[in-house]
């Protein structure tokens, strides 16, 4: 898919209305994607913004953490905007959109409820496309140092002298 197709088929208005229907979906236009609250922005060069928006929504649906902001999911998937991945992404997103349409939706990102999107994903969970996206997220999302504090995880402690004097045995509710 070329960039022209992106900007002609995905108008800002259409996407904004979709964003409203799909809740957390980002504002997208002409290869430029940004969060409604400006917490992140991304330019896609090789894949289309629709494809990126779909993969991003998949990421949120595969590993949904309501307390983790979109920007971390964007970081986890933005690497798919490259020549090596573009065919896989194009085919995978097309297949996902086709099954969304078969279920009566316009496409994947416009399915309103997570539970309905999960049904579509479950149907394709054995595909290479799904497994590549899921497998990539295991490190792409959870190995981001910036998300660790959201889980309460403190990471390395050597630089602070370990936990010997910083609560390795401070449990108080047993």
């Amino acid at each position, binding site marked *: 898919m070329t960039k022209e197709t992106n900007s002609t088929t995905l108008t800002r208005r259409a996407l904004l209305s979709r964003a409203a229907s799909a809740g957390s979906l980002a504002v997208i236009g002409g290869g430029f994607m940004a969060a409604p609250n400006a917490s992140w922005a991304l330019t896609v060069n090789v894949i289309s913004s629709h494809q990126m928006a779909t993969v991003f929504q998949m990421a949120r649906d595969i590993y949904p953490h309501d307390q983790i902001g979109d920007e971390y999911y964007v970081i986890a998937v933005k690497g798919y905007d490259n020549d090596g991945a573009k065919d896989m992404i194009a085919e995978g997103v097309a297949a996902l959109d086709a099954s969304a349409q078969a279920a009566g939706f316009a496409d994947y990102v416009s399915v309103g409820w997570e539970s309905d999107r999960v049904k579509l994903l479950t149907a394709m969970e054995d595909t290479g496309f799904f497994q590549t996206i899921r497998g990539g997220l295991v490190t792409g999302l959870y190995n981001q140092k910036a*998300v660790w504090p959201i889980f309460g995880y403190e990471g390395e402690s050597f630089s602070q002298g370990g936990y010997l004097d910083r609560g390795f045995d401070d449990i108080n509710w047993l």
Partner: protein
Amino acid sequence: MVAKFDLNDDNVVVVIGTGAGGGVLSNELAQKGVKVVALEAGGRYLPEDYVNDEWESFGQLAWTDPRTTSGDWRVSRDFSGLPAWIVKAVGGATTHWAGASLRIQEHEFKTQTHYGNVEGASLLDWPITLADLEPYYDKAEKKLGVTRTNGIPGLPGNNNYKVFEAGAKKLGYKEVHTGRMAINPVDHDDRMACQQTGFCFQGCKWGAKWSAAYTDIPRGEATGNLEVREHAHVARILHNDQGKVTGVEYFDKDGALQMQKARVVCVAGNSLESPRMLLNSASSMFPDGLANSSGMVGKNYMRHMTGSVYASFDKPVRMWRGTTMAGIIQDEARHDPSRGFVGGYELETLGLGVPFMAAFLDPGAWGRSFTSAMDSYENMAGMWIVGEDMPQESNRVTLNDAVKDKWGLPVANVHFTDHPNDIAMRDHAYRQGKAVYEAVGATRTFPTPPYPSTHNLGTNRMSAKAQDGVVNKWGQSHDIDNLFISDGSQFTTGAAENPTLTIVSLAIRQADRIASEMTRKAL
């Protein structure tokens, strides 16, 4: 003064691999005045190099050369190219290990006698007894500075341990403590005390945990009798027309093929690489590989019956703080067939960080069932199950001729399927682990499947009779007098205990034997 030996020096003992077996053996021989060349495929990393970050450390230290898998085990599905999580570095897996140091129980040296005929299992009594090994266990515990031995106190319990202990006591378990650990609770043997930093699996940056990398190896080198060659990947072991081994071929750090002559060769590349080297050394005289007249090289691969139980609570635990594995329940380690299986298991505390938790809690899982578990990470406690698995000839390491490593050598394929006894024991352990946590108010528990193998055993097993195994009670091959196996692949059976203390004890014992046989010119 670090030694340097000539490639043509045929008076040296060549030790392949510098982990728990090879690292200790090299030092013990060097201390006795024996000249040793230790060849290690990996590089040298010391405490200042270790990285307290799970994946980064994995990239630094783990063995990531290709391997393949087959069989019914879930590892083959979820981690098909990573059957084992072990190390390629000076010190071997003793850089990654958690330090749990237990002796094998008396009856576990005689499983055929005590367990009887277990269908489908190739049980065999070890050719040695606990009494044979006791003096060496004493030496090994001193060497490693094991807590609760030789007057060394136990480690203090961390949060993860406190939850585990409280649950265990409520359940009526009696043998519950912070383990016998090769981790200094106080400064000892020129190494400092544990600072509870919580990255024992990534290499201890304080040196509080024993590792061959910064104890036995430099001490051996200091004698002037040990030369360690890093980035030296052994391809083949060579022999002469009399069927004695004469040296080894290895790729050096620049990728050049070298040949080091040897008087004795000791193979200690861990239970996956050691049989691979023997099989890759096949010749017209030994078409099935070296030391393989029994056909047992690579067979009876054991990995311990393992699994984990994690639990979420309504309040924080913060299991990542402090020692990774200092906590044990030993009540289930007995042999008591009334539980529906032979052999026993240990329960040991285990804490993973967020990155490894995401990868290993339920590999392949996704959706809210999984992510809600991760959301309660801060409130989680965890334990690891380690029990005796049944040796089976069909569980084995073979050469995969279709896949070659960067040297063009066929890689190891690791085939494994649980024995019904393993499954029955794991189910029991899952129930008990869950009960421990529910006794202290767990709101949800997770019976987590086995990780890629950290304990790899049995693929060159010890046997009284040559037809039943690869090596005799000294680890000396039945077929070739001057070829020894010096790592965990010697284990006749796996026992319930973490294996390293036994690997170290066998290495100390083997060093005595090799030195005395050399003195009396039998080698």
